[in-house]
């Protein structure tokens, strides 16, 4: 197990996240703009957070978004579309007459924390209030906010602060993480853990798909009686009318394969049934992949000719499910009986 992987899955990990763009929507039209830009229900009270998307006009997800409700304003933490491209998308997408105050928050930056003991890390650095922060909510701190969300299946926090204040915090984070057996990790390590959990990654979206194929229907507002339009809605309605024929699935594979060997077209009984989106060699699982499969065979346990089998994500049993901030401490972590990281394997 590499040090980065071990930190994320068993201890704590942190990294600056420059790939995340911060966009604020303020003013009387902020909510109308949000509901036009993002397709989710977005029934948010102050300090609540919701996962959403940005879609293009074809309904293709182009960004992963955390929508943070800050009183009557919104802060969008956006991955997949940054800087000027994000601003251009927003400005081109807003309907006539909808004129919120839109700003890229370039003066702020994000530091993310992950791991089964990340709640302990964030509490040591930002105070005990963080320990009880509910999932998908935010807490206001000096110079910014702390958002509990996560992209690895472990406890996860995004600290959004003014850049100088955030850099001043880094030595504390580094020292506290080291005390918890953790370290600064790479974006690639976080990305691989995210992939093991089967989470959406805007860097791996095939052409021609919508949230329907990606199994992200839960990020869409299905209350069709509402007279609500959002970017990409017409394309999604058209896809529904035509029928959704493919579904994104996760695959595990025989150990003798490598992730790189799982590429291209997938077959069942010699017939073409899908294509690989992404393949990786997981440290815990060996070769894994995501694929678009014909919906008629996109079910768990279906074994493809390539030696890969459809599996239910998450592919790992995240340690964070077994760590309870109310009962456990890092110092007494050896008292916790964890199941194997991978189902069916020995610990």
């Amino acid at each position, binding site marked *: 197990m590499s040090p980065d992987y071990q930190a994320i899955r068993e201890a704590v990990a942190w990294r600056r996240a420059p790939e995340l763009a911060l966009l604020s929507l303020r003013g009387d039209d902020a909510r109308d703009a949000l509901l036009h830009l993002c397709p989710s229900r977005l029934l948010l009270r102050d300090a609540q957070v919701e996962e959403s998307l940005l879609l293009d006009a074809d309904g293709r997800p182009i960004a992963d978004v955390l929508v943070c409700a800050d009183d009557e304003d919104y802060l969008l933490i956006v991955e997949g579309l940054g800087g000027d491209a994000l601003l251009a998308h927003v400005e081109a997408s807003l309907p006539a007459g909808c004129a919120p105050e839109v700003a890229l928050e370039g003066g702020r930056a994000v530091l993310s924390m992950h791991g089964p003991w990340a709640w302990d890390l964030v509490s040591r650095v930002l105070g005990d209030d963080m320990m009880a922060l509910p999932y998908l909510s935010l807490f206001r701190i000096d110079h910014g906010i702390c958002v509990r969300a996560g992209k690895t299946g472990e406890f996860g926090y995004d600290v959004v602060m003014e850049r100088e204040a955030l850099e001043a915090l880094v030595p504390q984070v580094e020292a506290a993480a080291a005390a918890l057996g953790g370290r600064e990790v790479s974006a690639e390590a976080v990305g691989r853990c995210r992939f093991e959990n089967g989470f959406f990654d805007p860097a791996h979206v095939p052409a021609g798909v919508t949230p329907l194929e990606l199994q992200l229907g839960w990020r*869409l507002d299905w209350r069709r009686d509402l007279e609500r339009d959002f970017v990409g809605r017409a394309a999604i309605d058209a896809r529904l009318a035509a029928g959704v024929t493919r579904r994104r699935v996760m695959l595990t594979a025989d150990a003798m394969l490598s992730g790189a060997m799982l590429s291209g077209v997938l077959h069942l009984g010699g017939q073409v*049934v899908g294509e690989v989106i992404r393949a990786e060699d997981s440290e815990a699982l060996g070769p894994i992949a995501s694929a678009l499969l014909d919906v008629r*065979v996109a079910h768990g346990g279906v074994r493809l000719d390539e030696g890969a089998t459809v599996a239910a994500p*998450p592919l790992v049993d*995240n340690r964070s499910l077994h760590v309870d901030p109310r009962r456990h401490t890092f110092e007494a972590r050896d008292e916790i009986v964890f199941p194997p990281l991978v189902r069916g394997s020995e610990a």
Partner: protein
Amino acid sequence: MSEIEMDDALRAHLAAREEALGRVRRMLVERLHVPLPPERIDLDAPLFGTGLGLDSVDAVELVVAIEAEFALQFSEGAVGPTAFRTVHSVVELVLDPPEGVSRVEPEGVEA
């Protein structure tokens, strides 16, 4: 779409999966009040927190609903939280229950 040729074992496997998925979806809408049309509940949708938005109170109801819908009985500690992560993992649970989960004979049926 052209037909996919498959053997009887695979056909039966897929039919069992579709049937279980349909029942889990209906259960989530009718008993857990998930605010989505059943057919729009994705196989890999997360159940708790994000995704379908169930909470800790719903967790108890989910277990009760699964036991009732699929005539299963969970002994304490038999099933870890991973089994309830997604719709898909619940489908796997009801089709292939782990040790500690027993099938319950419907009332009125002699063993």
